[in-house]
């Protein structure tokens, strides 16, 4: 049975009318107030080309094309460099591997013209990639742009995570300059150095020298190579008790913030050594060994194809 609207009880009829009015106004309001222009604007919004902040304060690099902010892509590294001369003179340099892991960074702040005091901050030197987080990293070789999003700390004491530090935050989408050279070539007292190996079949290349004959990279590994003075060229077996010719293999423990020796067993050899005066030598050689986690004997690491040139003072 179909009931005519006018036949409905007036109270019910009024409620229905009021509901119609309410929904009509509500939907009309929603439809008329939503702006397609706004939607397009949001979709088309492009991210800023850069944002760099020190301790939460955005640095004033003033213009997008400011030449004081640069990205350089080398064969083995990406370097972000920024300088600012103003109320707070700043010089910032951050170096990443091509795969986007943080390797090293410096922040220099200058006090008072002609800059009598300089405050230098650097990355924590152990396992640096762990202490400068990279949330996004993309090298676009078509457009020659680098996209990067990073945050971390640079310290007054590179060995002390509790030392006075500055917080760095950056988001960039910026054109880069390509330089067909290697940036990360190692030198110690002006003598070329290198240390490469396969760690469980994966290529590892030293990118820093912490101290004499001590090789590290962006990750938690550290190699210390030692050849005893007056040792003739040859091959030498070594284990954790060796004190003459050996390789120490260490990993950085994030709980203790210190390097731990792995239990090693292998061979080191050198074929040539160069005299640099005053009981100083560099050795050219190879190594391979098996390393066992001291805290977990089931975890072993096979290090093969090790090649080095180190420097030692006796």
């Amino acid at each position, binding site marked *: 049975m179909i009931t005519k609207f006018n036949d409905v009880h007036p109270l019910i009829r009024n409620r229905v009318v009021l509901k*119609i*009015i309410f929904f009509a106004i509500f939907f009309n309001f929603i439809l*008329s107030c939503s*702006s397609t222009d706004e939607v397009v604007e949001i979709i088309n919004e492009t991210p800023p080309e850069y944002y760099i902040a020190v*301790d939460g304060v955005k640095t004033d690099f003033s213009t997008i094309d400011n030449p004081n902010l640069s990205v350089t892509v080398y064969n083995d590294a990406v370097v972000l460099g920024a300088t600012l001369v103003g*109320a707070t003179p700043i010089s910032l340099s951050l170096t990443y591997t091509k795969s986007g892991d943080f390797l090293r960074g410096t922040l220099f702040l200058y006090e008072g013209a002609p800059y*009598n*005091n300089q*405050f230098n901050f650097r990355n924590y030197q152990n396992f640096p990639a762990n202490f400068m987080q990279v949330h996004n990293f993309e090298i676009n070789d078509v457009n020659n742009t680098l996209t990067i999003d990073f945050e971390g700390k640079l310290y007054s004491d590179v060995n002390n995570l509790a030392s006075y530090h500055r917080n760095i935050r950056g988001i960039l989408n910026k054109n880069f300059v390509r330089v067909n050279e290697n940036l990360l070539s190692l030198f110690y007292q002006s003598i070329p150095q290198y240390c490469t190996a396969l760690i469980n079949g994966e290529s590892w290349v030293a990118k820093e020298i912490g101290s004499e004959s001590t090789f590290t990279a962006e990750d938690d590994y550290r190699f210390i190579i030692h050849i005893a003075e007056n040792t003739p060229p040859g091959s030498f077996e070594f284990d954790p008790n060796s004190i003459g010719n050996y390789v120490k293999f260490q990993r950085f423990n994030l709980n203790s913030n210190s390097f731990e020796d792995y239990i090693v067993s292998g061979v080191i050899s050198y074929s040539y050594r160069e005299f640099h005066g005053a009981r100083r030598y560099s050795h050219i050689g190879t190594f391979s060994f098996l390393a066992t986690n001291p805290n977990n004997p089931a975890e072993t690491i096979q290090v093969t194809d090790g090649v080095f040139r180190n420097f030692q003072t006796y």
Partner: protein
Amino acid sequence: MKRLILISALIAFSNIGCSDNTEAVSEIEPEVVAPENKFELYVNGALTDLTARNAFLIEDKIIFQTRSFDFEPTIKISKEGKIGQIHIDYFEFGVWRKFYNFRNFSSNFYSLEITSYDTILNRIEGNFSGFLYADPDNLNSQSKFVNGSFSLPVIESVPIILGLNNTAKINGVDWKTIHHYMRKDNPSDYHNLTLHTLSDDQFKILLKFNRQNSTPGIYSFNNNSITNSVKIAKYNTETHEYLVYDCTGTLEVTERVFNLIRGTYSFVGQNPNDASDTIEVTNGNFFLNFPQFD
């Protein structure tokens, strides 16, 4: 039928209200006029040709810095308008000379007022006037009357040293330094030094260190302690001298890095001329650099 007319009218009304927001706003919104940037500075009544584009906010301080051919003023104040340091480099008779506000109890000798500080629009307005002196400790030294006003945007800038401060409670009242300078305790001694920390009031807290030996540690001190100690001094506006109190207490140095020193202190000061006049300094907390000797 009446209801249908009513519904139509309401729907039409709601359409009018929302259909073209932009036009409606543009019709009623007054034209926004950007405030004019202004920085005026007069020296002995003569307007200089100085201009400034902005002021800098560095942590809790506002810095005005600009220069012209023969003037280079720097005004450092707290966000609350307390005077840190006002000085001008002034090219006169072929040489650059410096003039400073009288730095002791500075608010008593120089007038500075922030008339407006809009932290949303980041804009500051105010004025200043008073004498600047060739010697910031000597009211009888050569002086220049420097006054002016500012209305400028404020740009936040990275502090060179983050967290520089010296704060304490003086007889329970919060006290905070705005400016500090360093003096040798002995002209030929470059190691024992005193950091004079000033607010714009009558008090001055003096921290005595040795550049080499003030390493992290806890130091008990009394009035005879040459170093690793703290004193309080009160400015007398009649004698124009500070009364340095006899002080006994504890200083802890917690960090030394670069030319910076960080730590805490608490002590009691006693007026050497009136044993009943004591000042209790608690919650002392400092992070200071060793600037060049004054």
